[in-house]
């Protein structure tokens, strides 16, 4: 199940690109700000410098003009016409002369002030200021001239600025001052503008006297600017010139205010130089736009490049992601190309290794699961077999009783007077039943749940027993068994059941391998003494075992058989059993040349005594014929045939036999009569053998000591445990008469010995 991603997510590219973009914008913006600041600063500095230059030019102009005026008028003092006229002291002639001089000298007005008490004579161009205004304005200058000093001053009258040049004139006794007055007019302002490349505004008494800013008109703002600028730098009018940017209408200027040379300080006579920086500003604006466009373009370009770069860099990442997704879906065959040698390459290589490991692990897991499944099936099979074993035990128990009767009566028949032909028949019956007996007993002993129990056993007998189990199958599978048994082998202390299972496993495996391989199979079973060990070898001429299987052949669950046919546990169990006995099991094989399983067992004989139930069976029946004379035996069994057989057998041996059909009857008889031997079936309706025995043990302990159990069921553990604890001998059904006889003999003799 795929986790649901949020609707909006920032891709890796975005994560790189966004900060990059922000950094770019910040950087470029900062650069832009810096450059712009520098340019603006520079522009201001340039304008400031320009206006300062203009001011210097204006100052120079003023100085030059002063010099010019002075030199122009210096000769006037000695002008012959003036002298002649003054000598004659004729005001009208003087006035006319002054008029003429105005034309000649280019002044706007001329005035002659005679000595004390004389009214001045003046002449002026048409349209000038009225004398009434002009005269008082010129008075300080005139006074200075009357005192003999040639001076030039700027004065104001009726809102207009005037330049007054006053020079002392003296002809004989007539002394006076000649003043020539020039208006600081628009044309002069224009001249200054041409010189300084700046607009100039003359300010007189807080009014605009002349200006090159004709279109602006008498702008009150200009005056305000002048006031502000002028007063800011008023403390020291020469050095502390104040310069500041101003804006008039649409145009930006750098303004500088200065003081014109005046005689009276009260008059605020000044000028305002305005350097237009509008063009520079426009150019700056254009540059700003260009810079901005370039910045935006570079940001976009940079971002685009970064995007491409990041895309390129993260390409392996995406490949890796798709690879991971493929692996996530279970496609372990997917590999990621590891072309690059950088971290991505390493990552891809690691990813590929991981995928390989995953793939392998997964394959192993699948294999393991498969094996487990197989094993489970095999366990089920094993359990089934175990169930069958139980069933077999029950069935054989049921078979035991009739078989006991058949064996017994057949043996009795053998001793009866029969003709040769019938004797042959009976012999065949005895043989057949003997075989049945053997088979049933083997099945029982195999199916029985054994406590691990060591007893001294003959290895050859064990081998023979085992072979008897399998000889039917071997024969039907066309396998010939070749015995090479050494009869001189000593007995060893082993668990016969376990060893038989080992041999059975080996034989069964061999049979299955050989029967599929050839039709003339052979199994050679050898027993021998090798040093201090006994060796059993099972050599077949089958297909052999592949070397790679040979090393695993003893592993649990290792099998080469098809599913359901083998558990893979047989040889493994065998290995464990042999090891427990301190022996070794190994296999020698060449493929195609058969296999040889070799079991070595140490010779251990620390427990002495003859094996139980394995007594020699060759005791002659006839020799026991009269041993039971005078002895009374009680047989308790619910099975009529068994009862009859035992009765017949014992009667023939001279015993007095009484029978009881169940436990209660048996106990009644025992209470009434003394019996030398009590043979009791284990399993009966009503009181069973055990209960009878328990009863006797408490009520007739003497009788309990002469007890023999007959049982067809020695499989149950509790039974075995009881038998073992009580020490009561037990005869397992079916039993041959020989066995029975031996036990009776032993029991009665024991009894007799005790009596003796």
């Amino acid at each position, binding site marked *: 199940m795929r986790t649901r991603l949020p609707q909006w997510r920032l891709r890796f590219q975005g994560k790189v690109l966004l900060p990059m973009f922000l950094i770019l914008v910040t950087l470029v913006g900062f650069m832009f700000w810096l450059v712009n600041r520098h340019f603006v600063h520079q522009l201001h500095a340039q304008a400031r410098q320009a206006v300062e230059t203009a001011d210097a030019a204006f100052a120079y102009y003023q100085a030059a003009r002063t010099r010019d005026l002075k030199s122009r008028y210096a000769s006037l003092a000695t002008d012959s016409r003036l002298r002649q006229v003054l000598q*004659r002291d004729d005001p009208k002639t003087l006035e006319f*002369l002054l008029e*003429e001089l105005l034309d000649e000298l280019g002044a706007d007005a001329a005035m002659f002030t005679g000595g004390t008490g004389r009214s001045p004579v003046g002449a002026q161009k048409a349209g000038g200021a009225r004398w009434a205004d002009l005269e008082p304005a010129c008075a300080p200058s005139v006074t200075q001239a009357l005192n003999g000093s040639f001076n030039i001053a700027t004065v104001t009258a009726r809102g207009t600025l005037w330049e007054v040049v006053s020079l002392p004139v003296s002809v004989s006794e007539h002394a006076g001052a000649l003043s020539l007055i020039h208006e600081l007019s628009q044309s002069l302002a224009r001249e200054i503008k041409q010189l300084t490349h700046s607009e100039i505004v003359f300010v007189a008494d807080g009014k605009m006297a002349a200006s090159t800013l004709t279109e602006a008109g008498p702008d009150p703002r200009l005056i305000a600017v002048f006031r502000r600028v002028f007063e800011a730098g008023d403390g020291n009018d020469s050095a502390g010139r104040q310069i500041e940017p101003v804006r008039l209408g649409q145009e930006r200027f750098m303004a500088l205010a200065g003081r014109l040379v005046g005689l009276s300080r009260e008059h605020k006579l000044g000028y305002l130089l305005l350097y237009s920086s509008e063009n520079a500003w426009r150019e700056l604006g254009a540059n700003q736009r260009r810079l901005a466009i370039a910045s935006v373009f570079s940001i976009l370009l940079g971002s685009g490049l970064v995007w491409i770069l990041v895309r390129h860099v993260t390409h392996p990442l995406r490949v890796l992601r798709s690879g991971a997704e493929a692996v996530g879906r279970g496609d372990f065959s997917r590999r990621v190309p590891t072309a690059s040698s950088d971290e991505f390459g390493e990552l891809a290589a690691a990813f590929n290794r991981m995928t390989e490991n995953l793939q392998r692990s997964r394959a192993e897991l699948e294999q393991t699961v498969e094996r487990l499944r197989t094993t489970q099936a095999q366990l089920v099979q094993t359990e089934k077999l175990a169930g069958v074993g139980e069933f077999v035990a029950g069935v054989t128990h049921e078979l035991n009783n009739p078989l006991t009767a058949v064996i017994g009566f057949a043996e009795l028949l053998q001793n009866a007077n029969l003709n040769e032909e019938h004797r042959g028949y009976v012999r065949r019956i005895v043989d057949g039943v003997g075989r049945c007996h053997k088979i049933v007993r083997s099945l029982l002993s195999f199916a029985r749940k054994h406590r691990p129990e060591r007893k001294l056993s003959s290895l050859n007998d064990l081998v023979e027993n085992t072979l008897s189990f399998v000889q039917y199958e071997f024969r039907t599978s066309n396998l010939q068994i070749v015995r090479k048994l050494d009869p001189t082998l000593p007995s060893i202390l082993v668990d016969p059941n376990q060893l038989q299972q080992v041999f059975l496993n080996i034989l069964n495996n061999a049979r299955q391998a050989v029967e599929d391989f050839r039709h003339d199979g052979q199994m050679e079973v050898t027993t021998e003494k090798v040093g201090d060990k006994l060796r059993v070898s099972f050599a077949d001429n089958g297909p052999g075992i592949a070397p790679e299987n040979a090393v695993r052949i003893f592993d649990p669950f290792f099998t080469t058989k098809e599913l359901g046919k083998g558990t893979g546990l047989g040889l493994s169990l065998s290995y464990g059993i042999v090891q427990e006995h301190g022996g070794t099991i190994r296999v020698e094989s060449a493929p195609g040349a058969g296999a040889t399983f070799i079991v070595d067992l140490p010779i251990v004989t620390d427990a002495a005594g003859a094996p139980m139930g394995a007594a020699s069976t060759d005791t002659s029946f006839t020799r026991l014929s009269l041993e039971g004379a005078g002895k009374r035996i009680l047989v308790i069994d619910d099975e009529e045939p068994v009862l009859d057989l035992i009765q017949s057998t014992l009667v023939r041996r001279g015993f007095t036999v009484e029978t009881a059909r169940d436990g209660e009857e048996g106990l009644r008889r025992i209470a009434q009569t003394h019996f030398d031997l009590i043979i009791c079936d284990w399993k009966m309706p009503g009181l069973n053998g055990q209960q009878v025995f328990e009863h006797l043990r408490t009520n007739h302990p003497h009788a309990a000591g002469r007890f023999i159990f007959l049982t067809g069921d020695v499989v149950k553990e509790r039974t075995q445990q009881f038998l073992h604890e009580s020490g009561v001998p037990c005869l397992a059904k079916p039993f041959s008469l020989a066995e029975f006889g031996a036990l009776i003999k032993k029991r009665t003799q024991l009894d007799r010995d005790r009596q003796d």
Partner: protein
Amino acid sequence: MAMGLVTAFAGDITGIVRAEGKPGVESAPDSGGKYESRKFKFVERVDYTQLRDFVVYVDQPTAEKPTPPAKPLEVVTQKDATFKPHVLPVVIGTTIAWPNQDEILHNVYSFSEAKQFDLGLYKNEVKKVTFDKPGRVDVFCSIHSKMHCVILVLENPYFAATDAKGSFTITNVPPGAYRLKAWHERMPSQVKEVKVPEKGMVKVDFVLGIKGLPQY
């Protein structure tokens, strides 16, 4: 006078004098052209068609001995700081009166070769000067530099000043061949041979100017 009666044979010389500039210059007197520039700001522009005060006279001594002037007193007034007339041809021996009709003082003086004099500053007064040598006499005022007049002292009485239209008439000229000269104070003079008949008029026109000047 008797002489005039006796010699009944006399003719008149008449004609028109005008001046002419270089072609194309005067055609646009006010447009200025290159004269508008600062370079020629102080160059006087001459409107030739407006020039007056021509004098035409017989430029040769007549056989007779100098006769006393027919009009022994001429007047040049000072009015509005100007001499009037500006050009005055007189015959030798004529006395000129210099009345100052202005309210201001004027001075009348001349440093010319033909006559040197200085009448000083005066007003409300008439002063006289007799010119007894032929030649051109430039007269000025010492305190008004624009005041200027020319007294042309001639040796014979056969002369005439042009009128406002530039026409002149010299009367009672004895028949004969003469060198007739047209004069202007600012232009080269021009001489023409003229034959005066015994009776009647001879017409002579002059065009003065700088056209005829030799080209260098």
